[in-house]
């Protein structure tokens, strides 16, 4: 909660600086704010303190920052920190846009800590509304406009479906907070029935959330939106929005509806996950635009993350999802930072822009390769650790889902090899010159690569943390 307030104040400061026309200060201020918020969260985490935000006037609070939510929000803040770090300091981002990003982060944090459906709803909206704007921030380009309107319409549409689900649930159980939902679903789960009201409510909510995380068959907006939006908005969508949506998703479904798994929502999640992995990878391997490719591969990765819902133990599931998300975010950040660097050299986001990257930019290429290997799930990268954790947890429950995931991985190799094809293999006559990178970009890429490799090589390090928290 303190972190939330700090970030909010930071966002206000940024806006104020924007009004005062001193935009050059805004990024340092934002970074400072995020650092402060992160350190507060870390201190709270380490002191094993569950911050009592609940404003418990009546039974059933609004938010609860337990360990899972604090870890998720830490991940979100760290991602934004790295994203901001990788921005070119001058003029690339107005203070107002920066403020919007921070507002959006607030939504993400809410989403990771809600205990009441109202908070979930508000979290989703606070997360999305600034992004609708950011997607359309390149006002003069029709593609940016289109991305904004598509994102907006799909977002609002899915919110409406989600709310309908909430209404059904409310009618079926009479409560809106997770505790009440948990009780109700416990009773229904043990009587092995779900009233049609609850059943369809859960499915409607599921549809709404699958829209948000862009899982097949509710994915169709994401490639267009990713491609059309400005880079900074795309990277935000690909990392923070996805992570936050998953944080809320797993919280609602594991805590709220955890007990009615088998008959009600599990199968829907499994089917969506299997299709997402296979079709997402297949579609991604046909793309020629890097951002579209990442959108489709993001769909496939979403499929893997959905597998994390299948496992038996809630805290294990959350932990696995966290690891997977960390890997996914690090790899995505690396690729997007490189796209951004190329972009500032006047290149498009087409895959051809990567041609001959390997000749003069060893560090970047190394990071790109590591990130791609992590996405494929090659051992000694965090991608493998995450996939391993998720798959073994799911194996006890749904073996064939794991088979589907492995098949999808095999298809997926082709996707990421497209990058190698241009960046490393191509023997072009005029390779890219040494690219200019700012210190911030270097730090971002180095940090992400380090995370990928370190956690990949020594997973025990973070496994020990898990013992500490759960």
């Amino acid at each position: 909660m303190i972190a939330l307030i700090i970030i909010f104040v930071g966002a206000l400061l940024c806006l104020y600086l924007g009004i005062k026309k001193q935009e050059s200060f805004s990024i340092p201020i934002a970074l400072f704010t995020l650092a402060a918020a992160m350190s507060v969260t870390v201190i709270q985490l380490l002191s094993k303190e569950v911050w009592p935000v609940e404003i418990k006037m009546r039974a059933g609070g609004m938010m609860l920052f337990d360990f899972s939510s604090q870890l998720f929000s830490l991940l979100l803040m760290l991602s934004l920190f790295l994203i901001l770090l990788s921005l070119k300091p001058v003029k690339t981002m107005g203070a107002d846009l920066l403020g919007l990003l921070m507002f959006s982060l607030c939504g993400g944090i809410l989403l990771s800590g809600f205990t009441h459906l109202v908070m979930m709803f508000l979290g989703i909206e606070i997360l999305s509304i600034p992004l609708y704007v950011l997607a359309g921030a390149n006002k003069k380009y029709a593609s940016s406009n289109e991305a904004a309107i598509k994102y907006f319409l799909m977002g609002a549409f899915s919110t409406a479906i989600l709310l309908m689900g909430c209404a059904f649930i409310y009618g079926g159980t009479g409560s809106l907070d997770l505790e009440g939902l948990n009780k109700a679903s416990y009773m229904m789960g043990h009587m092995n029935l779900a009233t049609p009201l609850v059943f369809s409510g859960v499915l409607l909510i599921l549809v709404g959330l699958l829209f948000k995380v862009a899982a097949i068959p509710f994915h169709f907006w994401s490639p267009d939106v990713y491609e059309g939006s400005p880079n900074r908005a795309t990277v935000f969508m690909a990392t923070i929005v996805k992570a936050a949506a998953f944080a809320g998703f797993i919280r609602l479904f594991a805590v709220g509806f955890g007990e009615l798994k088998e008959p009600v929502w599990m199968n829907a999640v499994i089917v969506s996950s299997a299709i997402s992995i296979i079709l997402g990878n297949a579609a991604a391997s046909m793309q020629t635009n890097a951002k579209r490719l990442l959108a489709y591969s993001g769909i496939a990765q979403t499929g893997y993350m959905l597998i994390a819902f299948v496992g038996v133990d809630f805290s294990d599931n959350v932990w696995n999802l966290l690891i997977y998300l960390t890997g996914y975010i690090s790899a995505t950040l690396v690729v997007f930072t490189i796209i951004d660097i190329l972009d500032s050299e006047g290149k498009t986001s087409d895959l051809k822009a990567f041609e001959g990257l390997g000749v003069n930019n060893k560090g970047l290429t190394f990071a790109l390769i590591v990130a791609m290997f992590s996405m494929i799930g090659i051992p000694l990268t965090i991608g493998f650790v995450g996939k391993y954790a998720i798959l073994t947890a799911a194996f006890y429950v749904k073996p064939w889902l794991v088979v589907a995931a492995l098949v999808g991985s095999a298809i997926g190799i082709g996707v990421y090899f497209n990058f190698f094809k241009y960046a490393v293999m191509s023997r072009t006559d005029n390779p890219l010159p040494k690219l200019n990178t700012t210190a911030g970009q270097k730090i971002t890429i180095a940090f992400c690569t380090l995370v990928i490799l370190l956690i990949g090589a020594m997973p025990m390090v973070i496994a020990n943390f898990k013992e500490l928290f759960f």
Partner: protein
Amino acid sequence: MELILISIIASIITYFVPKGMAKMVALLGAILTLAYNSFMLQSFVADGTKKFVFDTPWFSDAVHFSVGIDGISMLMLLLTNILMVVILLGAMRKEWKRESLFYSLILFMQAALIGVFVSNDGIMFYVFWELALIPIYFLCALWSETGDYKTTTRFFIYTFMGSLAMLGSFIYLGSKGLVDGHTFAYDNLVAVKLSTTESMWVGLGIFIAFAVKIPLLPFNAWQPSTYAESPTPASQLLSGIMLKMGLYGLIRWFFPMVPETYEFWSNLIIILGVIAVIHGALIAIRQNGMKRLTAFASLSHVGLIAAGIATITIVGLQGALVQMFAHGINVVGIFLCIDIIQRRTQTRDLTQLGGIAKQAPYFAALFLILVLGTMAVPFTNGFPGEILLLKSIFGYHTILGVIAGLTVILCAVYMLRMYQKGMLGGPSGENFDFPDLQKSEWPALIILSAMVIGMGIYPQWIVELTEASSENILNMIKETVEGVS
């Protein structure tokens, strides 16, 4: 453990040293590894148990970083480390672009290979198995002779799919085993009891992984073009060592994992192996590209080894191990010779070559020794292994044994054809100049030839080294089979 560390550290150092130094540092690293390996061999007692055990939790409690060396592992380690030195010596003759990266990848490969041969945990085995793929992929792709990335990508996708199937099988086995504790330990995975159906599926997963790597017949589509287009050190690594990963996997992992259905699998593998023997040899006879020829010859030899392993007899296993060692040495040597020829004449097409023997007698002699070794002439290293293998297959089924026996004749045909066309006869063109061996080519070829002769005369040490371990594995299979029936 220390072996892996040495080569990894050497690999990293190699990447960062200045250009000219890289090859020396790499060679030093390889020699150091070999030296340490010999040092380990000194204190090694081949009684079938694992030595030099090191075990620590890695991913979680279920996956440990767990290594241990028994006779078979030791043999494979020796093979790897000796060949690595030779390969580096051979490679040093050429100027490679991005030299430090090149040598660093080779050493990284060595570390991964060592990891494969010593790992004692299913997931760890998988991890190193995949890691071995990465450097070889980049070696083949970046220094490819034709610049065609498709071949290499096909190779990568083939093997990666196989590995994924293996991972699936391991996870399945793990889920059937202990839930708490070191789930993926080798002993634990082996101890899992499966029903026949489960065993078939699990076996299929692991089989695909190994069959792609070996490669057995229907999975060999990647092999010839990859061998032909890769730079020589990569071809050497692929055929000399990486292929042995698959065979080693068959011995160590595959059959002990699925003893319930071992009869089915051994029938299958023997038949595939024998077909591969004939198929590979017949194609090899018609080849003119020397590398391609060697690739198919390799296919033929490896088929025989796989068939020998699949007989699940002590003779077959021993023969396979001896022959694996011998084949590694021979094939690396032949690739080296091909490389030497190609570097001097810019071609490796048999129709354009000839008359080398007159100008470079030393080279011709050493090459001849390697060729004879491959042909399994008595008193060369190919002989004992091949005899043992054929004997085991005869014991399994007489007709198959006879068919497999043809390999001796066919092998003589294509190897001698290669030697005769390439080395003998008149000079193929004006101003034909073929300098004899130079600098680092000498030690490389001498080491190899010495090993060919030495092993031919005294193959017994391999048998002694691996006997106890092989029996262990056989017992493991037999016990389960008896327990089931």
